[in-house]
């Protein structure tokens, strides 16, 4: 099963085969699923993009943000304003959401990246809480928690005519296309030299600094890029539901991004999409879960971080290791496993060690050993 086979379309490895299967399911899905399932699938795809955008920051750069709800909300509202207040089309809405969020993210990032690593998280929490307060109270602009409905204009595609977002199949494919394109861009970014620098900052910030990397600038870039894609996800979500409200800014929405990423696995991008499918799918079908949604998310977060911090991808890697397939080492290396070192690194202990070493002997030796 692990060997690759020569076929007329090229070499088929298990990895490529799996991707082919995912693609086939994604394309075939609208032809077997009903309207509600299609609606659910489209909104889950948007949320998957949201999770993947968060993963770009958290998984690859090691920065935990509780402020992603703000980006999701800003994107959603930017598109809403572009469409309802300025009468623009769907694509302008997408661009507006992306750019407005990128701008907001740069501004907020300037504050957040200035403070120490723990301070970064706290500042993002603050940003989320303040934005939520503002969004809920400025009802004349945001519509408050009651929200605003958005009449998404139809899209004119060459050869296909006007396509409406009321058509579930078109809605699904449109979302799928934007999500896949965004994932590819993010994948490219994460595997570019810039992405390598992100990972170096995650694994050893001090070393990156010593090698001459402008760590603050890289963090700011990661934060903005991640924010912009989260904003894009917000736009998509608005297109799918035709509705936007101040609750997009609530802290639970930030928590959603974290749970998708943790359930799916960090630093994988696609894992977050998988996480979104599982979490949202489960909570939509079990009505008892929908009622106590925050309880479920809270319990899931707690269980994941305590028992399987590497998420599903970690479980898969562990299974492959257990059953001794030759693929295990390489898969584990480029996936979850690489994170293990990182986790130990940015832990409090290592910091303590470094600090103790500095204060006692004035050298970095012990600190380095910890790292």
């Amino acid at each position, binding site marked *: 099963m692990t060997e690759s086979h020569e076929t007329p379309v090229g070499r088929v490895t298990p990895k490529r085969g799996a991707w082919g299967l995912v693609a086939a399911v994604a394309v075939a899905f609208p032809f077997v699923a009903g309207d509600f399932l299609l609606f659910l699938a489209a909104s889950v795809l948007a949320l998957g993009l949201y999770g993947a955008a968060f993963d770009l920051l*958290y998984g690859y750069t*090691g920065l*935990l943000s*509780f402020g992603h709800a703000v980006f999701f909300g800003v994107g959603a509202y930017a598109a809403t304003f572009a469409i309802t207040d300025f009468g623009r089309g769907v694509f302008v809405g997408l661009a507006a959401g992306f750019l407005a969020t990128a701008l907001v993210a740069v501004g907020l990032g*300037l*504050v957040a990246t*200035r*403070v*120490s*690593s*723990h*301070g970064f*998280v*706290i*500042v993002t*929490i*603050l*940003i989320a*809480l*303040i934005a939520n*307060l*503002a969004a809920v*109270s400025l009802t004349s602009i945001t519509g408050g928690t009651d929200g605003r409905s958005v009449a998404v204009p139809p899209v004119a595609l060459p050869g296909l005519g006007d396509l409406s977002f009321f058509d579930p199949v078109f809605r699904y494919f449109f979302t799928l296309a934007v999500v896949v394109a965004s994932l590819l861009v993010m994948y490219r970014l994460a595997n570019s030299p810039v992405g390598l620098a992100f990972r170096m900052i995650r694994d050893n910030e001090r070393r990156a600094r010593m090698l001459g990397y402008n760590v603050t600038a890289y963090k700011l870039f990661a934060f903005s890029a991640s924010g912009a894609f989260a904003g894009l996800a917000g736009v998509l979500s608005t297109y799918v539901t035709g509705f936007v409200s101040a609750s997009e800014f609530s*802290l*639970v929405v930030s*928590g959603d991004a*974290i749970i998708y990423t*943790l359930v799916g696995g960090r630093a994988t991008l696609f894992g977050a999409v998988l996480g979104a499918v599982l979490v949202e799918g489960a909570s939509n079908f079990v009505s008892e879960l929908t009622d*106590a949604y*925050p*309880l479920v*998310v*809270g*319990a*899931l*977060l*707690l269980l994941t*971080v*305590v028992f399987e*911090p590497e998420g599903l991808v970690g479980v898969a890697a562990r299974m492959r290791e257990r059953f001794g397939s030759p693929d295990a080492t390489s898969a584990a290396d480029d996936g979850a496993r690489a994170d293990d070192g990182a*986790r*130990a690194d*940015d*832990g*409090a*202990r290592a*910091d*303590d060690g470094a600090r*103790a070493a500095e*204060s006692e002997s004035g050298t970095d030796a012990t600190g380095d050993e910890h790292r």
Partner: protein
Amino acid sequence: MALASDVAVAVLNGVTWGLIVALIALGLNLIFGLLEIVNMAHGSLYMLGAVIGWFVIDATGSFFVALFLAPLAVGMIGVAIERGVLRPIEDDVSITLIATFGLLLIFQQLALMSFGPGTRSVAAPISGTVSFAGVSYSTYRLSVAVVAVALMAGLYLFLFRTRYGTWMRGVRQNREVASALGVPTSKVYAFTFGLGSLLAALAGVLLAPIVSVHHLMGLDVLAVAFIVVIVGGLGSLRGVLVASLTYALVENVGALFVTPVRARILTLTLMIAFVLVRPGGIFEGDAV
């Protein structure tokens, strides 16, 4: 004259609110300084204090029983959290953060399920007002301020004059050396988390007659406590006190001119801007 007395009341309110915020944020900062855990559930511990307090008052009819029982209960919950949830994952800051966020959601939802979605009020145990120089002010609020000052003085004495307090400061400075010298670090951690939770719950019960009790009340306080901790400096206790009073005074005096929500948003934003100028907080590099 009306304006002058309005301003006086706003300042008094600011001081009372600032002292309570300081009480909550001190616990948060104590936990951070010692355990390097950013406790997102801190606001919900404050909320739990108020909610449990409401239930106790409902059952016994006595505010003072609630003032004793609720913080004790929440303090024990705090110890249980440290032992059961955070201890196994304490080495990873972001993982503990996510875990405490999970706790926040769980506590909030449990409060919603047991307490209901509405707001409820608690009658102040001391009624009446005190008049001085033409300004009359609620006796209860004044006593809350006095109690808060007394608690902080007690905390100071505890940290600097008792063995456990010295242990806590020792562990804060260097965990390995403290442990090598025979300080029971594991107990100190659990105790610190419990103490921080107890302070938050105490603030919750004290404030219950002033603000209305509901299951989301922890979120507002969380934002305020975090900004105060950031502006005051992570780990700095006197910074927290200064930042709390500044924050509360600006917010309360500001609320004379704009709506309270806008005053809060503006104050929080101003304080975030302060972080740009001085990322390390007011007293940079302070230890306990």
